[in-house]
């Protein structure tokens, strides 16, 4: 007998095989690399499109009967995506402008009446209703009307600025140690977002690894060699590693992109906070993977997994319904209770940590509860495969699962 038989845990070969099986897949490698490439590409693409549209501005005819209203005014002149052409006389007549628009001389026309500040309508000529440029033009004209009304009321520009000045807030904390930083919240939410996309990206591989393998009838060979729980443990370890590999590559790419681009990096975050966020990321991912594995272990074939895939996308966003409650009152009873529940903790507790509303004992406690729940879910997943594996063509229902788990 080889010595190795007594050294390695039973789940180890399953974890190794499953991990290598997934990471060697072409589609996995593509998605691993494609996500950052697409993100960077979209980011640059959006910039390129914005730049391109600035180079191809909307051509608008402009005529004003209001004294002092001119396209040379900064509010209108600084519209980067509009190229103004001042028209007057016969050229400013609506019929002439219609002809010019149809002839593509202009994309549209703006006619400002003398009493526009008093409520007379600014006339807009366009080929079809509600063109996008009307929204862009409306804002500076509203600002000009506001200035005009102020002047009519005897308020000069400086006076108007003084009126518009917002109030200043001076914060005095009863707990100086609870001062939050923008960096904390950005980091926490970025990692929660990373958790979410990693869960989504892993769901399909998890279905193939569990239901697909069950359907291929490989499990009976495997559980004749190792315990069903060891098989499930190996799968869970593999998928947690796969998820964390994705999170590392994607999170790392985002960070690198931020460093080497013009993004403003958030202020420094304490290593303790980062450690807490990462622990919730890993434990939360393990919890959701174990929960999905339990569901998938009860399903008879891959076709039937389409029934539950929608839930896999829906379930992890449920905690976000409560995010506003957390942000408004992070120390409220509801916020505290929710952030201790394993289902919500991976998303809500990092927000409370970032808001300095969860002392160390509390988030460590919630983390331990999350780990305990993951352990329970892992055992349930093992039971589901033990019961379901021999039921070819039949699915395990919840009462059966709970009865077997109890046994």
């Amino acid at each position, binding site marked *: *007998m*080889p010595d*190795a*038989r*007594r050294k*390695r845990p*039973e789940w180890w*070969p*399953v974890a*190794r*095989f499953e991990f290598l*099986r997934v990471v060697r897949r072409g589609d996995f490698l593509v998605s691993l690399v494609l996500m950052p490439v697409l993100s960077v590409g979209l980011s640059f693409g959006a910039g390129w499109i914005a730049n391109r549209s600035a180079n191809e501005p909307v051509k608008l005819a402009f005529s004003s009967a209001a004294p002092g209203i001119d396209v040379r005014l900064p509010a209108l002149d600084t519209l980067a995506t509009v190229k103004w052409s001042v028209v007057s006389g016969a050229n400013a007549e609506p019929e002439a402008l219609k002809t010019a628009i149809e002839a593509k001389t202009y994309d549209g026309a703006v006619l400002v009446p003398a009493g526009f500040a008093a409520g007379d309508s600014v006339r807009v000529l366009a080929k079809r209703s509600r063109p996008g440029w009307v929204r862009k033009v409306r804002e500076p004209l509203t600002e000009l009307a506001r200035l005009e009304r102020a002047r009519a009321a005897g308020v000069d520009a400086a006076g108007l600025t003084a009126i518009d000045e917002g109030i200043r807030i001076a914060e005095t904390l009863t707990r100086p140690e609870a001062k939050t930083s923008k960096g904390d919240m950005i980091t926490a939410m970025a990692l929660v977002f990373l958790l979410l996309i990693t869960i989504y990206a892993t769901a399909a591989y998890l279905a193939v690894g569990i239901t697909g*393998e069950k359907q*291929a*009838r*490989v499990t*009976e*060979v*495997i*559980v*004749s*060699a*190792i*315990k069903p729980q060891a098989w499930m443990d190996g799968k869970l370890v593999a998928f947690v590693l796969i998820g964390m590999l994705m999170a590392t590559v994607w999170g790392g790419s985002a960070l690198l992109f931020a460093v080497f681009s013009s993004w403003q990096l958030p202020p420094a975050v304490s290593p303790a906070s980062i450690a807490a966020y990462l622990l919730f990321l890993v434990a939360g991912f393990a919890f959701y993977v174990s929960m999905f594995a339990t569901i998938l272990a009860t399903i008879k074939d891959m076709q039937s997994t389409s029934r539950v895939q929608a839930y896999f996308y829906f379930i992890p966003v449920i905690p976000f319904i409560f995010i506003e409650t957390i942000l408004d009152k992070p120390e409220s009873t509801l916020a505290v209770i929710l952030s201790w529940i394993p289902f919500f903790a991976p998303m809500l507790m990092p927000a409370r940590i970032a808001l300095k509303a969860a002392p160390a004992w509390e988030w460590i406690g919630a983390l331990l509860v999350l780990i305990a729940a993951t352990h329970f879910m892992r055992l349930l997943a093992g039971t589901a495969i033990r019961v379901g594996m*021999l039921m*070819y063509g039949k699915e395990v229902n919840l009462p059966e699962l709970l009865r077997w788990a109890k046994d």
Partner: protein
Amino acid sequence: MNAAASPSILAVHGITKAFKDRVAVDALSFEVQRGEIFGFLGPNGAGKTTSLRMILGITHPDSGTVTFDGSPTVDRRRIGYLPEERGLFEDQKVIDTLGYLGQLRGMSPREARAAGMQWLERLGLADRAKSKLNELSKGMQQKIQFAGAVLHAPTLAVLDEPFSGLDPLNQELFLSVVRDLRDQGTTVLFSAHQLNLVERLCDRFLLIARGREVITGSLDAMRSAITGGASETLVLELSARDDGPSPDAAAARAAFHRAGIAGAVKVESAGVGRLRVEAGLPPLHDVGPALAALGGMYAITRVETAPIGLHEIYLRAVRSAMGDSALEEDAARA
């Protein structure tokens, strides 16, 4: 562990398993001796696979015990299992799959791959080591599955329907491979419906029906028990001579009785004007008087004697235990 003390590698005592509406295995007991090839037989739905799963610890009996090599705990890593319901990782290379299956049985990755390659060579598939499983024929996949079940040189190999999907040439190869396996020290527990092959391979048998033992022992012992001593079969074919009468069933039976062949005589038509007569004989029985009696009346166109085979023993034992109607019901349900 008392491997040296006990000749039995596997001892099953009174295992019972009931599912919702029926008892699948009912107080079944048997022992498999070290180094033998043991045939575990029964009709579809008899409880064979459920019994094998209990032996392997995949499911647990409601009552009864399974002792493996003297221990009440089955060491799964010393057992090789080829289940009836089987599949493989179709998107994986053959050698990777074998390496994985070997590792599951406790081998190191290197050992598992080396053993996998040896088995591929033995089975004539060495050149397909790097092929993906979905590129192979069903028979080739069957061989890979077999290799995966035994590449770790198990103490006990449990093979459930290993011949299914194999052509006659590969069936012969499997017979030889299973014998080699036994010669190298692996005890084999074997379940199959190809009784002609099982008969050639197994040292002892257990036949079950409806979860209970019907008969057990060596082929000779079962033959003797089931036939009441008439362990040979005499088969004659009779036809009319040019000027003589057509063969008559009653006359044929009477001639057999006069010749001292007292057991059941089966007579059936073998075509127009021809009869096939079959009778059980004790060993070394003189068939001369019967041939002389019948030869005086009819032309004897075929004479054949053979030991009663496993197929016949199986049918007689199961029919006697269950009755024809119950057999048909079970076959329909399975």
